[in-house]
């Protein structure tokens, strides 16, 4: 679709804002509507739009396949790791109250806020990378007779 100037210019203009909006939805999810699931899909849709307009190789050079594939597992590891960290700190699985700390109060989140922040980050990473990988898998497949 790179031959259509309107699509090319408009999507070039939109993609940074879509990415920014994805980050906003991810990190502002505790205070407004949003969270890891939504942010993941929005972030992935920016990459998918890039791939649709500029072709699959261009998208793969932005988000290399091997890297995105490792991110799928990383998100889940972050989520489960938070749970085990809570156990290691003496709480129950995913009991964020034990994550309380007193470093930079008012700036760094702590306790429940920190736990939710990290967990949502894990969800966001997994959802983003799964959506991108699924898109890659479908569009790399050539049609056979």
């Amino acid at each position, binding site marked *: 679709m790179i031959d259509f100037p309107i699509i090319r210019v408009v999507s070039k203009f939109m993609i940074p804002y879509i990415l920014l909006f994805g980050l906003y939805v991810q990190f502002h999810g505790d*205070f407004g509507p949003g969270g890891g*699931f939504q942010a*993941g*899909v929005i972030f992935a849709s920016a990459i998918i739009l890039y791939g649709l307009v500029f072709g699959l190789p261009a998208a793969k050079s932005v988000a290399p396949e091997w890297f995105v594939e490792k991110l799928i597992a990383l998100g889940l590891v972050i989520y489960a790791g938070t749970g085990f960290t809570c156990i290691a700190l003496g709480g129950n699985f995913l009991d964020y109250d034990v994550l309380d700390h007193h470093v930079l109060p008012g700036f760094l989140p702590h306790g429940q806020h920190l736990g939710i922040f990290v967990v949502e980050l894990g969800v966001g990473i997994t959802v983003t990378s799964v959506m991108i990988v699924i898109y890659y*898998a*479908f569009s790399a497949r050539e049609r056979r007779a």
Partner: protein
Amino acid sequence: MTPETFFGLFNYWIVICLMMTGFYIVISSGNLIKTVIGLNIFQTSVFLLYITMGKLTDPVKRVTAPILEGGHGDSHGDHSAHGEHVAQVSFEEHASEQLHDAVKHAHADLSEAGHGGAEHAHEVAEVLYSNPLPSVLMLTAIVVGIATTALALALIVRIREDYGTIEEDEILELDKELQ
């Protein structure tokens, strides 16, 4: 049937009609992609059913989405001097003791700030919130739904590559020939 019950149940009926349309597509269509589309429509209707059940209406009070108002403003102490953030602290009719404590706390903050908290005290907005639980359940269901849809579509691509068709009856015939 009174008009009240009619309008009270109307939403469910609409959702059931949508659901049944999706169901019809699933069972009547022989095309695999059409079947997945039907499943998608069915799925979206189920989300709508849950969300409809979670909605709360009230003739007097304002009902809004389960995002508490003024919560963020309070988290930075310097904002409390403005007063209006605290005035928006929300109440359920059956508010717990803890909430009352929180309000007392807020009032104390106000009078400390020297802005005359008493004037704001009766401005406390009566706000009700719709149920957050259906939202939570459907949120995860949507994303899991797209993941499973992608799996179904991947299987369809493989079926098309091996059988050369995505029509159910043709696939069955090919299977019979092989036997």
